[in-house]
Structures are given as C-alpha cells and as structure tokens.
C-alpha cells in the first residue's frame, strides 16, 4: 500500500494480511477466482458485439469492508428511503397528496414517461410497489454517504453479491475466520418470504411464485436462473403463462397451474402486449387484467419506476419529510436545477467545478465534467444552459473514498460505489448486510460500469462484538 493512503481501523486485518501475502500468491488466487467464475458460469451475455458472447465481469479479490457502526447507520437510512419511495408511489397512483400539498410539480409526475396510468387507483397487494430496491451509494467520509440513484424497477446484481461471497470463502477461508462477517447467503430465502407475503389469496398456504425472465438472451439471465434455483421456484418465460378469466396460469406437465406471485425481470413496456407494447412477445396477454382484478401480485409493481426517475430524484428528501415526518438520513447529491433562476446563476458561475448533465439524458451523452473540460467546452455548455435551461441539471464532483484493490501493478486505491438490496414485503423491510460493490479498476476513474472497465468486490459488513 502506498504510504499516503490513510487506513480505517476495520481494514487493519486486511492490510496485515495483504502485507504478509506475496504478490504472486495473490495473482494465483486471482486466476483461480476467474476459473471458478467461468466454471460456475457467472457471465453476463453481450450479444451482437463479436468476441466471446458470454463475458466475465472482473472480480477483485480484496474485499470491501464496512464497519458495524457504519452499516447500522446506513441500513437505517436505506430503510427510511425505501419506505418513502414506496409511500410516494402509492400516493401518486391514488390521491396525489404530495402534489396537492405543492411539494412536487404535477407535470413532473403526470407527464413523466415512467408514470403509468394503468396503475391508477389499483390497490396493489400489501400496498407495496418496490419490493426489491437497489440504492446506489457512494461514501465520501465517515458516516457520510450520498445516494447516486434509486433503482425501483428491476434492479440486478444480487447474484454477484452472493457469488462473490461464495468464491471468496473458497479462496480465503482463513481470512473469514479472522473476521466476524455478517452472512448474506439467506438472501434468496428472505426474497421468497417477501414474495410470499404479497400473495393475493390469503387462504392459500403455499402460494405459487414464479420468476418471469425475458429469456436466455438477456444479459442478466444467469441471475434469473440463479435466483429461481435458490428459491426453488419456476423460471418462466412469457409463453409459459396465460391469463384466463383474469387468473394467471402456467403450463406444466400436470396441466394448467394457478400463479399467485410473479417476480418479473422484464420491463413494464413488455409485460402485456394487450396493454403496453403490442409487439412484445416476452409478455403475457391479459396480465394487466389479472393484476387489476387483484388475482396476481407482481414484483416490482408495474409503474414503480415513477419513484426512481432522474427528475424525481431531487424530491426524495422532500418525500421523506412529507410521508414519514423525518429528516432524511442519507443525502442526495446536491443538484442544481438550471430551470431555477438562482440555481442557474450559480451553475453559470461555477461551471468549471460542476458536472452538468441532461435532465432526461442517459449514458453520459451530453455531459460536461467541469474540472476536466477545456475552457471552450465550458463556454459551449454555458450557452446551451442559457438557451434551454430546463434540459440541464448540475451536480458537484464528489471526493469519493477509495479502497485497496489488487491491480496489475499490485495493491492500489480505487474508487468504489455500493448497491445494497432492500427487500420490502407486507411483513416489513429486510436488508441483506452488504451489497454489490463495484470498483473502477482504471486509475483515477470514477466509472464503475462493467462495460467501461469496472469490476466487483465481495462486500463485508462486520458484526460488532
């Protein structure tokens, strides 16, 4: 480790271990990990780009460690945020009190692509919309976390969280015995409990739950198989299901079997060709009829995406105050809305310090990273902001914390983010202690996406003794 890097106490044992372990052994373990992943078949599919269609996401063998105290703080914040997001979704599909109270502009919700009129006045089972939420966080200091993004639709990555742990336990059993690490292997069981809790027929003791996948060509197909297998439920594709008299059935070798809960991993637009995209062959015709008739539960709920929309993000702290009467525990990245005169003045003044993004854009297109931009680029963006201020937002660049990572040159600090998975059922909120840590393997990079040189790490939450 470079001497300039300060080390937090819960990393002490890891660093001692790193100092004692020769680099070539670490390298050997890294290769072993790769073979394990390849054998288990944990790949993400990338079709149509040439090369190996089934790629591995790089795995870093040094775990990311979160202290018990920090996790206690974090999990409280996550629970609060997820409850608020759910309350918001219920509200916008019912009375819309938050709009009436003037806390959020009506157009932002009602004219939002993610607002789904088909969900209006539907009393979803257990009043739950985001049964599985993935909240993307970054840490900038002690008990200082920022939420980058909420994922309330079909958050993925939990299989990496679980398999990273499996592989680590196989590679470094000694390291595990040195630490007291909160287990995460129970996640599939809790997920199944969560899904059971929303079954619409309370009289049925053992409701039928299925996982609806778009199929083997989906990039997350491995995860779909993995979760279905771990939960012991059927992995179904659209054509395996049909709706008759507003009841969902699946085709089995024993004949038609009634389905109570659908854990779907396909997008809203594809879920029912009679209601949404007519060209969808992935969905189930008539599913919305069964859903609106109260005969089936869908997780996450259709229309849940209204809560994780980019333009709604700014209002999440407001939601926490409005629905829960509490102060938000987790912070939003401060966001300047260029449509607002004061904000705009600030942005134009400080453009070289800010990240300017298109409010509706995605994927980094049309983005300005002020500190790395040329003077001309900054001027260009200032002109654009003045011309169509409503299309831009701006955020400060965060001083992300780094964690030790094993790279070609040895052990070096790299930036990470964290996606914990929060489960919300009729029986309450449960959080697997940990999450998916994504790491930017390139030096200095802040981009953790697997498509741009990002990898994953096992995430340890220490148990306080």
């Amino acid at each position: 480790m470079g001497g300039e890097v300060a080390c937090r106490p819960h990393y002490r044992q890891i660093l001692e271990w790193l100092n004692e372990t020769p680099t070539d052994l670490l390298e050997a373990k890294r290769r072993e990990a790769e073979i394990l992943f390849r054998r288990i078949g944990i790949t993400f599919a990338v079709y149509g780009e040439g090369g190996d269609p089934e790629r591995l996401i790089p795995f870093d063998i040094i775990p990311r460690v979160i202290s018990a105290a920090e996790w206690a703080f974090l999990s409280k914040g996550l629970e609060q945020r997820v409850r608020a997001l759910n309350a918001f979704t219920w509200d916008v599909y019912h009375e819309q009190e938050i709009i009436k109270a003037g806390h959020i502009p009506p157009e932002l919700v009602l004219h939002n692509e993610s607002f789904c009129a088909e969900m209006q006045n539907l009393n979803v089972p257990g009043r739950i919309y985001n049964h599985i939420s993935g909240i993307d966080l970054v840490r900038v200091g002690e008990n200082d976390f920022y939420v980058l993004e909420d994922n309330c639709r079909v958050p993925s990555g939990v299989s990496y969280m679980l398999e990273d742990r499996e592989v680590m336990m196989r590679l470094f059993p000694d390291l595990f015995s040195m630490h007291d690490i909160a287990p995460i292997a129970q996640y599939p069981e809790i997920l199944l409990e969560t899904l059971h809790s929303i079954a619409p027929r309370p009289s049925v003791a053992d409701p039928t739950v299925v996982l609806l996948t778009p199929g083997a060509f989906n990039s997350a197909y491995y995860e779909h198989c993995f979760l279905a297998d771990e939960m012991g439920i059927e992995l179904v594709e659209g054509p395996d299901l049909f709706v008759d008299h507003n009841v969902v059935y699946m085709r089995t070798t024993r004949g038609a079997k009634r389905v109570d809960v659908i854990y779907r991993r396909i997008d809203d637009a594809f879920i029912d060709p009679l209601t949404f995209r007519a060209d969808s062959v992935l969905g189930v015709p008539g599913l919305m009829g069964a859903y609106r008739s109260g005969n089936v539960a869908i997780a996450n709920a259709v229309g849940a995406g209204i809560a994780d929309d980019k333009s709604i993000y700014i209002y999440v702290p407001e939601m926490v105050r409005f629905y829960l009467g509490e102060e938000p525990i987790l912070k939003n990245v401060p966001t300047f809305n260029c449509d607002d005169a004061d904000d705009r003045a600030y942005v134009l003044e400080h453009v070289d310090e800010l990240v300017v993004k298109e409010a509706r854009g995605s994927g980094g297109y049309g983005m300005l990273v002020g500190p790395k931009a040329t003077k001309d680029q900054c001027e260009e963006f200032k002109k654009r902001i003045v011309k169509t201020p409503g299309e831009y937002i701006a955020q400060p660049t965060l001083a992300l914390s780094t964690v030790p990572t094993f790279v070609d040159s040895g052990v070096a600090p790299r930036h990470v983010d964290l996606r914990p998975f929060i489960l919300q059922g009729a029986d309450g909120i449960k959080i697997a202690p940990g999450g998916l840590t994504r790491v930017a393997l390139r030096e200095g990079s802040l981009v953790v996406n697997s498509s741009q040189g990002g990898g994953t790490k096992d995430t340890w939450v220490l148990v306080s003794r």
Partner: protein
Amino acid sequence: MRIRVTHKTIYRYDTPIDFSFQAIRLTPQPFIGQRVLSWRVREEDEGVLPNYMDGFQNVVSLLTLLREHEEAQVTAEGVVDVSDQKGIINGAPEPLPILYFLRQSPRTAISDALKSLASAVDGTDPVLQLHDLMNCIHKQVRYDTQATHVQTTATQALEAGAGVCQDHAHIFIACARALGFPSRYVSGYLLSSEPGREETFEASHAWAESYIERVGWVGFDPANQVCPTDQYIRTAVALDYDGAAPVRGVWRGKAEESLAVTVSVQQTGADQ
C-alpha cells in the same frame, strides 16, 4: 333517446392457431345523460366474456382462446338511454387528475403544423375557441376512408388533409392540448341520421373531450362538427386511440388475422 346497439366482430385466421387473446373496450358506462339499460359482450362459444376496469376506468372484456381455432365471433349488444347534455360530461368515473390529459402521446405528438393550426384559432372564451378549433379541423381535413389507416398520427393526417373520425379526434386533441386544454380521445357509437340504415363505419365512432375550467369535460366531434348529442354513446376514453381502441388482439402462430365487422345502431323502444 333509447338506442339499441348490435356490434358483431368476426375474427378469422387463414390457418388454424392454438392461442389468441383479445382485449375489447366496447362497454358503455353510466353517467348523467347516459343510462345503460342492458349490455353484454359475448363470444359465440365462450359465452359472456370476463372483464376488468383499466386505469381510465374503461371496461375491458378479455377473450382467451386456448384451443385450436380459425374463427371467433364477438358480439357487443345492449340498450342505452341517452339524453342531450350539450356535450357536457357529468358523473363519469374520473380516476386520473385532469392535468394528466395535457400529456402528449404517440398519436397526438405536437408538430409545427399542428401548432400553427392551433394558434390560428379565434375567440376569447374557451368554449368558443374549442368550437372554432372543431370547425377549422372539419374544414381542413375532409372525410376520406382511404387517406389514412389505423396507425396514422395527428401530424400525418393533418398533412394528408383527410382522414376518418379517429384522425379528426387526434388532430383536435393535439391542438387543444397545445392551447392548454386537457383533452382525451373517446370511442363509442353514433346513431345514424337515417333510421333503419346499417352503418359499418361511422356507427362505430370516435371524438374528443376537452376540459374547460368551471364547465368540466366537454365533447367535441370534429368529424361531424357538433358537440355530442343524444345520438352518441360513449364507451371508452384514453390519451389517444391506442388506449381506447375497441379491439386489440394478439395471437401465436403464423396466421394472418382478418376482421369482419357489422355495427347496427338504431333507435328503439318507448321513445321511438
């Protein structure tokens, strides 16, 4: 006025298929001025179809056929008492906030041509403005069943200068929204002015509704240049045709589907 509707749709597939599904929005609901005395949607072999309420509170009947078939016959029929409310809708289910209906939709996306049509509208009073809009559209877009098809957008229809009731309604909705009036698409039935004649096109009809402050939702039928009267039965509303389409279907198999539709809308009973 008491009106009897018999609407038969025969779905035919050129080769036998194993599964087909149809969502049918052909059930009128009661509100002030529209009293539904009897109504049912049935399939020849399946009997009365199950239904559900969609997000706009339209009744959606679902036909599921899981056996081998080449044909299905759906009949929507019933009797409705209608009285003239000058096009004003009162007492209908309104699950969505009025502002929602200012939202653009694929079929009613705004364009420069639509904007300039809207901005040419005269009148200080909202009611007069919308009437003027209705008259303008009626003048500029002639009735022609060949000029457009079921997928045509408002922009395309305006450019063609011709279309059917669906296109008139889409153009009206796009312009009215541009003028700041929440607006929506309505599908339903229209009693032909010539008694006893069986209509196949305009008997199944479409028009628009706009929201006017202190008045409420008001119907406008630019195809016929009137506000709906006691000759109009309203069955479904949505942002545009896609959400209120009378029939929407999918099937599995390499078959071509063809529809044969006959609609009879006639005055009946005590008021005749």
